[in-house]
């Protein structure tokens, strides 16, 4: 077309000319084409370089993030196999805590949408609805909106019973797809509230909280396994499994039956006094019972009140009404829950009261400062460096010998005993009884008491006086029960412990925890004497109430006045043991501020111990040795406890009658003494103190006014009630440096810094005491070893 035009326009041109022109044009075009080719190539090269830079950038800048992302997406192909946290068993193999396999229901939208079966979605949905009650409309919507999603959890922690029928259905119907189950373990506590603060609890995350669950967290936990997906040579997805390593099993010395008995009577007591005096409050402010085998240091039962449900630990509902819970701030609520979770038996400190008298007397006897034939006069009060300290019997006990000083729990006699042996001796023995030191029991949250006891250098006469009967310094229940055990078991201080054996998940024993003697606190002879005195306490003295029908037991009562003094608040306690000649069980009950108008009666604690022993002793195969009176038979029949071991009764008839008569005689003389000095107020029927005009109960000569204080304002080491909260907030332990100390009360000696020095002073004295009292370096090193062994876990 164009060539014709050219021809027409320039007819004069020759063929040769045309050819040359065309050739020129073509060359021109060709030359420009070469230039264009080059420029196009340059553009392409630039574009390639840009893209190459982009690839390098992605790899360098985002490589790590994307690599992680890729690994995270492999969930389906490489998944974690959870380990099973170890069980906690009691001494008879009953499960206190175990982990149960549960299943999370996971939907794989991708598999459903990609399935070649047309009814995949409908079949899967109907099966899901039938087996799990899934809202199918909602789920179908989800699958349609997220067709690529491979991991969508729709139900959590389903038990196997629910999963099983679905798996069967899936096997029969191949259209069901895109559903799989992720395994998980849920911690269960079959006894719910039993021994709650001792066992502690762990969530699905396998983190233990308080108690054994926390202390043995690492032992109980295993390690996760893994299932890997990889491509085989044929490029098919193969799986290989590295199995999970399950956690170890703890066998404890706790006995579910004894624990249940203990908790039953504690609750009975607390409920009986609920709202009795202080409106709307529980029967006790705090209450704890420890039952221990004095020959091994194994804890048979340990309980505080109230309990909580370990399966639902964050629900305080059983103890508070709904409105109260609603009104609580989150922080307040957890503060309350922390209080609930803490173990009173090891975390709370208090002044031990008269139970400590057994330590004072044992110290005197063992050191040789007392011969056992001493007698003391009690006039109802004594004046020590200007302070008038009263005996609980304001009328005075008259002349008492050593045994009677314990039987009657005579403060005046004890103060004289203290004076006789001196503060150095008493403190040396208290340290040897581990007062002020941790027992290192295998539970988390044990209170540190080193700043809550006297430092021998700063003690003044009045401090010594009140500390002889257990006022002015602070202890924990576990310290007291361990120390007392050594007094009655021949002088061996056993480390208290709960776990007796650690097994692996297959049941093979990995470690046996044998009873560990830490030191010899007193000699065996002293121990024999002490057992005799303490038996007398329950036979003829203040501890008669605690004696279960048909048994002879030993023990010591305690009534400690709480700080601030003179507010009528007391800690009542009783420490009992049986049988008296070969103690197999020690029971210690502490009741903090019972909800009654008139608190200072150790009978509250005694009754609880009596009830516990009545039921627990036959269970422990300790049989009745005494004849039952008709009254006692009636009482036992009511409780349906008579059947047990009645045939054993009546064997030691003779001695029993003899001792009973003796006791009665003693009391009569006392009453005569009292009557001679006191007048009876005609209007009220109370006795009147001729010196002060104070009204006293005519039988016991204890003051009628519950707020009256025997201690004349002596405070000793102040035990700040707030400190209790501090400790529970910090399950490990609170730091003693953080606590400012109020010093040594009214005597004003050694304030602040003195207390801090006191802490370290105790440790030094302890080492000396250990060496001198045991007499053999071997045992001292045992003590040290023990501390190191448990150091990692327990010595915070």
């Amino acid at each position, binding site marked *: 077309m*164009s060539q014709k035009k050219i021809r027409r326009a320039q007819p004069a041109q020759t063929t040769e000319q045309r050819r040359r022109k*065309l050739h020129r*044009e*073509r060359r*021109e*075009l*060709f030359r*420009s*084409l*070469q230039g*264009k*080719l*080059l*420029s*196009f*190539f340059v553009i*392409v*090269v630039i*574009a*390639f370089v*840009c*893209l*190459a830079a*982009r*690839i*390098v950038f*992605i*790899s360098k800048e*985002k*490589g790590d*993030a*994307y*690599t992680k*992302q*890729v690994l995270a*997406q*492999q969930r389906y*192909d490489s998944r974690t196999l959870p380990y099973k946290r170890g069980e906690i068993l009691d001494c008879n193999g009953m499960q206190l805590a175990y982990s149960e396999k549960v299943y999370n229901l996971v939907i794989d939208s991708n598999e459903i949408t990609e399935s070649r079966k047309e009814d995949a979605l409908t079949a899967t949905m109907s099966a899901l609805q039938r087996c799990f009650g899934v809202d199918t409309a909602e789920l179908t919507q989800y699958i349609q909106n*997220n067709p*690529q*999603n491979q991991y969508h959890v729709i139900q959590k922690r389903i038990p196997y019973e629910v999963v099983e029928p679905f798996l069967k259905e899936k096997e029969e119907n191949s259209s069901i797809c895109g559903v799989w189950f992720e395994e998980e373990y849920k911690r269960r506590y079959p006894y719910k509230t039993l021994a709650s603060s001792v066992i502690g609890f762990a969530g699905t995350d396998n983190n233990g909280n308080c108690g054994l669950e926390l202390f043995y967290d690492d032992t109980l936990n295993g390690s996760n396994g893994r299932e890997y997906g990889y*491509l085989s040579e*044929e*490029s*098919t*997805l193969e799986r290989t499994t590295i199995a999970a390593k399950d956690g170890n099993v703890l066998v404890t010395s706790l006995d579910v039956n004894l624990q249940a008995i203990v908790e039953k009577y504690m609750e009975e007591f607390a409920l009986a006094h609920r709202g009795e005096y202080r409106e709307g409050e529980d029967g006790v402010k705090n209450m704890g019972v420890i039952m221990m085998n004095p020959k091994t240091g194994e804890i048979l039962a340990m309980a505080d009140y109230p309990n909580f449900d370990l399966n639902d630990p964050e629900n305080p509902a059983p103890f508070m009404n709904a409105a109260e819970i609603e009104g609580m701030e989150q922080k307040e609520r957890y503060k309350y829950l922390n209080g609930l979770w803490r173990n009173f038996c090891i975390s709370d400190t208090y002044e031990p009261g008269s139970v400590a008298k057994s330590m004072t007397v044992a110290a005197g006897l063992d050191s040789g400062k007392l011969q056992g034939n001493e007698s003391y006069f009690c006039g109802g009060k004594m004046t020590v460096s200007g302070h008038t300290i009263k005996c609980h019997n304001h009328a005075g006990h008259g002349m008492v010998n050593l045994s009677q000083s314990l039987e009657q729990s005579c403060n005046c006699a004890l103060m004289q005993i203290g004076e006789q042996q001196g503060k150095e001796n008493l403190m040396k023995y208290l340290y040897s009884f581990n007062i002020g030191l941790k027992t290192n029991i295998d539970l988390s949250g044990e209170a540190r008491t080193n700043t809550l006891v006297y430092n021998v250098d700063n003690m003044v006469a009045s401090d010594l006086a009140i500390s002889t009967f257990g006022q002015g310094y602070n202890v924990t229940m576990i310290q007291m029960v361990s120390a007392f055990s050594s007094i009655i078991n021949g002088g061996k201080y056993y480390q208290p412990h709960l776990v007796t054996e650690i097994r692996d998940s297959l049941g093979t024993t990995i470690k046996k925890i044998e009873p560990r003697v830490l030191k010899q606190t007193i000699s065996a002879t002293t121990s024999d004497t002490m057992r005799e005195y303490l038996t007398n306490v329950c036979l003829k003295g203040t501890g008669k109430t605690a004696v279960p029908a048909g048994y002879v037991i030993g023990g010591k009562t305690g009534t400690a006045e709480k700080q601030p003094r003179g507010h009528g608040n007391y800690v009542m306690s009783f420490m009992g043991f049986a049988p008296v000649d070969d103690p197999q069980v020690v029971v210690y009950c502490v009741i903090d501020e019972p909800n009654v108008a008139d608190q200072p009666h150790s009978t509250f604690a005694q009754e609880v111990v009596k009830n516990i022993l009545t039921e627990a002793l036959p269970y422990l195969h300790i049989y009745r040795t005494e004849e039952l009176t008709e009254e006692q038979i009636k009482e036992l029949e009511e409780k349906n406890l008579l059947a047990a071991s009645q045939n054993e009764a009546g064997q030691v008839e003779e001695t029993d009658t003899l001792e009973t008569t003796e006791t009665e005689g003693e009391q009569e003389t006392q009453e005569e003494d009292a009557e001679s000095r006191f007048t009876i107020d005609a209007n009220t029927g109370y006795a009147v103190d001729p010196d002060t005009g104070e009204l006293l109960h005519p039988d016991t000569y204890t003051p009628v006014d519950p707020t009256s204080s025997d201690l004349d304002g002596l405070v000793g080491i102040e035990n700040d009630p707030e400190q209790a909260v501090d400790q529970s907030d910090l399950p490990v332990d609170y730091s003693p440096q953080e606590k400012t100390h109020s010093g040594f009360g009214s005597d004003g000696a050694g304030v602040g810094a003195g207390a801090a020095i006191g802490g370290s002073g105790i440790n030094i004295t302890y080492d000396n005491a250990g060496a001198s009292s045991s007499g053999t370096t071997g045992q001292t090193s045992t003590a040290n070893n023990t501390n190191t062994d448990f150091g990692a876990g327990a010595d915070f």
Partner: protein
Amino acid sequence: MGRKNRNRKVKTENFFDYTLLFVVLFLLLFGLIVLYSVSSYEANIKFGDGAYYLKNQMKATVLGLVVFVIAIFVDYHVWEKLSIIAYVVSLCFVLLILTPLGRTYNGARRWLDFGGISLQPVEIVKVALIMFLAAFIAAIGTKIKDKKAIFWSAAIMGVPAAMIFFITRNASSAIIIAGIATVMFFMADPKYLRYVGLAIAAALFLTVYVFYSIYKAQSAEGTGDFRKNRIVAWLNPDDYASDTSFQTIQGMYAIGSGGVFGKGLGESVQKMKLPEAQNDMVFCIICEELGVFGGLCVMALFLLLIYRCMVIASNAPDTYGALLVSGVMGHFALQVLMNIAVVTNSMPNTGVTLPFISYGGTSVLFLLAEVGIVLNVSKNIKTKEVVVYEGRRA
């Protein structure tokens, strides 16, 4: 060496671009290995045969090699005469998609099915267009600057592009067709300025389109359409990682997780995640298995291929041959660049395959035909006139 000898040699010596031949054969073999590595997992699940895709591709490759050899030996001027027929026939193939012969796969009707042998007409259109445009431009010569010529050129380019776009709903192929044609016009036209203007206009249009998309997406927020906006998804791939950008993001994960030297051939895990990784996303898996290094090597090979095309085009014995090679060069350049730009999220997601490596029989067959033609052009270069780019050798 004497002048006489050299003159004698010129007549007997034929140039043949062995570099290009080896690059193509290497890419072909490499493509098959990568294809097997990438596709075996999915093939196993879907067809129970890990080599399913590989076998199909090998059949096409064998057929392609036959065509390749034929193309090398048939003088390329034959295509100058046949190009108009090829062009018309290729357009008829596109129309055939509308008949019952058309086959739908993955929701797109882009294939023809002749009793078991399936064909993608768009690949034929590309070759036919290159042939026809080269013949057309060579025929009109310098008249390419005329308005009439521009109209005809636009028609030759526009008809197939529009047909591909409207019949097969394949925007990316339409863009490539338009692109190849534009590259060829650019080569033939001595003027530069109008193409610079065209580039600026295109850039402006794209910018406006991006902003318009964002505006539309914002106003449609909350409705289902919002999610389907590719432009918005391109700009914020992480926000759409579970739907629109799923493929892109997963591809980026593959590139990023490969490291410098990759996880090793066959070790990719992303190919299990990426649906149909053997198609458009194959370059990601190369980067994952062979690392950034492997990816850059593949890019270098393509660049070498394009460079060889340029050298051949520069030395082509005539305009038709030069334009033919430029068209093939443009085809390769556009397709490689667009593919890699998409997988690195440098441009919005469009389905462009990577030559010789992505799965697709028709594509391999016709790409081999194109390279065969290029090699034939190189065969027609007289050694004496060979121009090496650094400077001419007299």
